């Protein structure tokens, strides 16, 4: 029983340490960053490379990149999940798709950056642009969306499908009218996680969307995301205050997105049991 006591102390220690690290991390960024953040900071253009002024173009850039990534990855990912869960049983192709999805999930973001640079920026001639960056991010978040969507679709009770088929439903009708509505919270969770990952990503974006501080006005304009902006400000020591401010906005936004995703998933699972 002495072992029990020691183990409990260690486990509690680990848990409190982890919570402490999270709180310290977020607390540090918010404590230093929030005082800088106001409406002006969010809505104003930066001046002298971000030393002064606001971060408006980077907010727009981040939103545009994440929106494009999700707009491309969500249909592909949910489509893949439907195909895997509703249309196929076992098979060579399914095995290969699963293998590719798992492997893609493990590819580090810098390699997505290199790939996006070679394919979109250079080969397809899209240049450093919202389009190149968004497409790169789409490839990156695809596995997350596929996995969560497939899990959510598989969790829909088989009896719902049976009822729909027994009433003369085709597979398509059953998927659209019964399966997807029931799986929607889980699917949205995956999409939100994808939004969060896109917004926080740096390495994949910096080589594909570029670092231009102008306000992007079209998909073919280069864009600097908040995380890239933060990286440049921090690394080049341009303005600690504005760096912290940017980080605070980024952390708050990502926390909000992720907690929403978590809450949705909990509600979804609670309903199932």
């Amino acid at each position, binding site marked *: 029983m002495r072992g029990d006591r020691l183990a409990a102390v260690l486990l509690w220690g680990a848990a409190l340490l982890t919570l402490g690290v999270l709180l310290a991390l977020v607390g540090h960024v918010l404590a230093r960053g929030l005082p800088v953040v106001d409406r002006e900071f969010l809505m104003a253009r930066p001046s002298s490379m971000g030393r002064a002024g606001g971060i408006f173009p980077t907010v727009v850039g981040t939103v545009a990149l994440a929106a494009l990534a999700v707009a491309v990855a969500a249909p592909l990912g949910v489509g893949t999940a439907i195909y895997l869960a509703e249309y196929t049983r076992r098979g060579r192709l399914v095995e290969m798709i699963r293998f590719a999805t798992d492997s893609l999930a493990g590819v580090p973001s810098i390699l997505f950056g290199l790939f996006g640079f070679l394919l979109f920026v250079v080969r397809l001639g899209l240049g450093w642009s919202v389009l190149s960056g968004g497409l790169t991010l789409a490839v990156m978040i695809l596995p997350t969306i596929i996995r969560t969507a497939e899990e959510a679709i598989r969790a829909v009770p088989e009896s719902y499908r049976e009822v729909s088929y*027994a*009433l003369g439903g085709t597979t398509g009708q059953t998927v659209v009218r019964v399966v997807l509505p029931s799986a929607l919270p889980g699917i949205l969770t995956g999409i939100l996680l994808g939004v969060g990952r896109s917004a926080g990503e740096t390495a994949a974006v910096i080589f594909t969307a570029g670092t231009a501080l102008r306000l992007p006005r079209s998909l073919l304009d280069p864009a600097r995301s908040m995380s890239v902006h933060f990286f440049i400000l921090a690394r080049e020591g341009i303005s600690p205050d504005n760096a912290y401010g940017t980080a605070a906005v980024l952390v708050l936004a990502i926390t909000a997105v992720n907690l929403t995703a978590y809450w949705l998933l909990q509600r979804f699972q609670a309903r199932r049991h």
Partner: protein
Amino acid sequence: MTIRVEDYSFWYGGLRALSRVNLTIAPGEPLVVLGPAGSGKTTLLRCLNRLSERAGDTRQAGRILLDGEDIRDLDPPVLRRRVGMVFALPTPLPLSVYENVAYGPRLAGIGRHELDARVEWSLRAAALWPEVEGRLGEPAGRLSGGQQQRLAIARALAVGPEVLLLDEPTAHLDPLSARRIAELLWDLSRQQAVVMATHDPRPATGPRARVAFLYLGRVVEQGPAAEILARPRDSLTRDFLAGRVG
């Protein structure tokens, strides 16, 4: 409408679930498929609307003819509109009462103006209308177990099937609800071809019913309910009715 099952066998993988079944289902003669758990009743019903094929790795031999046409030549959705089904567990879809009943008609492309009348007619036919008339917009999950099962019947009727399959429709209900459903079914069977699977011979005593006793995937004997239940020819049937096998 007549369904003829001819020398029909069905396998799940290597497991033979039905073995050379021969049956005729004619209008006006409700058929009760009687048998202990695992005798193949559910499989037989699911073969009649080809829901059995969803299991993957299945095999079949023999034929099932719907008005002379092999059901394998029919598109499954079209077949299932003609051969409706109610499951053992009342399974409301996560929709309102109204939308549950309207589900099938909508799939079949029934227009909006016809839908209200169709829903009301089906709910009346399932003897549920007076209880849900004022709560059509409520989630169907809020209905009681017996109401949910009548909703499932209304939902199946709403598609206008030529025959209605019911798989142990009262198995999960309290005795009172179960009796209501049984009475409803005998009423329905006046206008509607009905096939009901059950392990319980009691509700099978409708006056016009035929009984087919199924054991280990084989039809042991069949005939008018009054005859089979009162004077079974086969010793297996006798043992089952006396509660000695099951």
